[in-house]
């Protein structure tokens, strides 16, 4: 098979290491960049390098951060007695968008999943326990996903945190706002009914 020039081969092999990018897609992306003008390509390369240079993870909560603390942990206006535990930094963003939550976060960096070889020690669970032990936290909201692994992780955390004397809660399940009841799936409706509240 005829070889592509080395720099092109190298780019293709780097791109194909990205999640969700197979060899075919990597080739297409590489040829796209080859045809693109030089400025575009340089600006992409610079964006990647800058991101790696300037963004890391928060020392306190493992959210993304510019510097050693993230914007939320550095803010003086947050309620430090409330801690919301989430799976990923994207979940932090999702909760922040609601503007409903004024406490702090803690990013686990995944969920317990034995099949993938992930247990509490592969997550930031030891750090979470230290944080709760030390820091005047009164309530921990465990906001992992409602799938099997997220639920198991929540149960694990609930049991690990309870002896530390904090209140441990889980977000309520409800109907999607603006959703058509008829098209909401049965489990969602069932949970919303079970978890109903008075007006």
């Amino acid at each position, binding site marked *: 098979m005829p070889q592509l020039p080395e720099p092109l081969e190298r780019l293709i092999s780097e791109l194909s290491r990205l999640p969700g990018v197979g060899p075919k897609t990597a080739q297409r992306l590489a040829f796209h960049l080859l045809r693109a003008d030089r400025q575009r390509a340089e600006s992409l390369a610079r964006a990647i390098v800058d991101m790696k240079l300037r963004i890391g993870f928060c020392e306190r909560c493992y959210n993304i951060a510019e510097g050693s603390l993230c914007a939320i942990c550095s803010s003086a206006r947050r309620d430090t007695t409330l801690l919301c535990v989430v799976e990923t930094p994207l979940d932090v963003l999702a909760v922040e968008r609601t503007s409903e939550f004024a406490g702090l976060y803690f990013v686990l960096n995944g969920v317990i999943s*034995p*099949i993938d*070889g992930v*247990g509490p020690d592969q997550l930031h669970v030891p750090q979470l326990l230290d944080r709760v032990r030390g820091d005047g936290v009164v309530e921990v909201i465990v906001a992992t996903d409602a799938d*099997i692994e997220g639920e*198991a992780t929540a149960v*694990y955390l609930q*049991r690990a945190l309870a002896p530390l004397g904090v209140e441990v809660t889980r977000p309520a399940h409800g109907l999607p706002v603006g959703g058509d009841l008829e098209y909401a*799936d049965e489990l969602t409706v*069932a949970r919303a009914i079970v978890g109903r509240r008075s007006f």
Partner: protein
Amino acid sequence: MELKRLELNNHRNYAHLDLEPGPGVNVFVGANGQGKTNLLEAVAMLALSSSPRARRDQELLGPVTPAARIHAEVESAGRGLEVTITLQGEGERVRRVIEVDGVRRRGFDLPGHFRVTLFWPDDLGLVKAGPEQRRRFLNQMLVQVEPGYARNLAALRRVLEQRNSLLKRIAAGEEAPGVLEAWNAELVAYGSDIAGARARAVEELRPYAAESHAEIAAGERLEIAYIGPPENFGDAVEKSLGDDLRRGSTTIGPHHDDLLIRLDGRDARSYASQGQQRTAVVSLKLAEAALVTRRAGERPVLLLDDVLSELDAERRAALLRRVAGEGQVIITSAEMGPFPADLITGARVWSVNSGRIEACG
């Protein structure tokens, strides 16, 4: 419940099929290997979301393209509904897209829209076969009548995969045993829901099954009982830790359930003759249809694949007496022989020939 129209594209040996079955009895006749079972399989998928016989969706794709489509117009609770299952082959994998009235649904949210009771030759071994087949009998019925059951089954499967994997990791010293508690809680939560649904269903099936059996088998007594997880499920799971770790798998839970079948007080699995077993199976299937009818408020579509030829005249008559004349029935057979004349008079008869279906007479 009625299947008004069925369209198949590239499903098994059907390149293209457009069928409008009648509201009553429909008989599909064809030689071996012409597509009778393939037809019933497609109809069953509309109710169950996956094929009750294919191990992989790949097997379902016909030769034309790496994609297949099952589309149906059905009538359910007096309301028209369109159900579409599309299979799209992508290399080794097959993506399954399910739509009800144009709205995407996940596999476990499809059952309950269109209901069937399926009876095919494999079921004739229900009594003698291993417990897995009897659990499948209960599952196929329950996903269609018990909201959330299909989802709980999928969840339980995932919990067991995770828990078994964890047991192996703990046994190998790669993980601390403390994590197990969380998975035990999940096992007990989903397991209890499933076990509860099964226990209630078996109680409900019991009188129906006994009654039809007594009728077909001259007063013989059929009793069924559900054998589920132990009374104190949660404690039992904790006590089984040693066993579980040694085996690297979960020894307690509804994945070990069984349905005990007794004839005149004896375990049918070890004592029943061939004929008695078959009668018991016919009775169980009739009881299933009765339960679904009662819970759903309307009769499921009955799918009888080639079973008449396997039953003797008396059992055949008893089965047909119960199923004909009420709702929609789809029966297949290699020949017209086993059908009583009075059934055929009111029925629609179709011929099946290498993936093509034509109305007869």
